[in-house]
């Protein structure tokens, strides 16, 4: 009989083969659709009436969107499989990096950032950065209808289940009835035309934080902003056995 570890190994291997073929085999026909539509638009646009041109553009947009969904799904599956590379992470520095990453999204916007002192945590830096990017990016996105956006980032160090970090915004908020949907894969509470995105961001945040042994939750109200919380287990000094964290 196969051991649990061996079965797990097989399952992981299958999953890897699956995502490989998803990324490879699904992308090829999609590329052909997008490529030939683009060629039609380049060389034959004048032969089409307005409706025809519009439909070609719609095909093109749909192909791009599907490509984005495939990419997002692959990142999501990688977040579930990749081994955690733990080290000490200074969240203050990470917030600064993410702010710089969001430069394009924040350009021309009036945003008041209230950034409180954040603790050091232990975790996988690239995964935590993705989680933070998603939370801060969402705050930027869902306040885009506000004249002045106010985004606050803070921490509760003595929270009951470890270190708690929150991102609060004064954006469009959401109806608490659907709060659990927010963290689902490709679940969205807004139409594409209102706010862009595929709906993978918070699913990634939840997966990343769960893998670190933490929790994710949110509160908000329609048109009254939202607050997203993550918790991470407290790093215990007594358990220190990793030389790089000393």
């Amino acid at each position: 009989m196969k051991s649990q570890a061996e079965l797990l190994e097989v399952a992981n291997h299958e999953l890897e083969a699956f995502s490989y073929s998803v990324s490879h085999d699904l992308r090829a026909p999609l590329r052909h659709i997008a490529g030939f539509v683009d060629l039609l638009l380049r060389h034959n646009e004048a032969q089409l009436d307005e409706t025809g041109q519009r439909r070609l553009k719609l095909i093109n947009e749909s192909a791009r969107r599907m490509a984005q969904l495939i990419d997002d799904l692959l990142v999501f599956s990688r977040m579930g499989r990749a081994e955690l590379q733990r080290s000490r992470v200074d969240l203050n520095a990470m917030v600064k990096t993410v702010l710089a990453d969001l430069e394009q999204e924040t350009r021309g916007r009036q945003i008041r950032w209230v950034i409180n002192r954040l603790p050091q945590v232990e975790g996988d830096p690239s995964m935590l950065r993705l989680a933070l990017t998603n939370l801060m990016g969402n705050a930027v996105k869902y306040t885009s209808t506000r004249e002045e956006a106010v985004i606050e980032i803070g921490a509760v160090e003595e929270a009951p289940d470890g270190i708690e970090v929150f991102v609060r915004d004064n954006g469009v908020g959401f109806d608490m009835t659907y709060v659990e949907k927010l963290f689902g894969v490709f679940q969205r509470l807004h139409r594409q035309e209102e706010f862009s995105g595929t709906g993978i961001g918070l699913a990634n945040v939840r997966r990343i934080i769960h893998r670190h042994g933490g929790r994710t939750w949110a509160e908000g109200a329609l048109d009254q902003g939202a607050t997203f919380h993550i918790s991470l287990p407290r790093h215990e000094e007594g358990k220190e056995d990793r030389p790089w964290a000393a």
Partner: protein
Amino acid sequence: MGGLTRILLADDSRSDVELAIEALTEHHLANQVVTVSDGAEALDYLYSRGRFEGRSDGLPALVLLDIHMPKVDGLEVLRRIRADALLATLPVVMLTSSRQERDIVESYRHRVNGFMVKPIDFPAFIEAVKALGLSWGVVNEPTAGAKRAA
């Protein structure tokens, strides 16, 4: 007018070949693109054998290899090119549908000259092909009649 620059393009997908030729044409890259549909044919071309028996126009300026092809795949063609003293210095660029780490690692292990993920976005593909042409010196002066493969 300089000598003819020839590109050998190996890809089993007819659609990908058509799109690649369109992109090459857009930039007047290569007056001649020889297309083959698997790795075995690519090797036949390089060794002037099989249906390319008796060919005497020398080696191409650049070889573009799709990674996933029937019979002999792109990585195997690359490995054989590098193992043959007469072909070893041929510029080879791998083409692939997805950014899969193991393919990239494997390609560089066999001293590939470049690696290109075919983008979904066709204008981006055209730009990538242009960059490819510039780095491998296969850009041609747009001469009359040379826009399409001879």
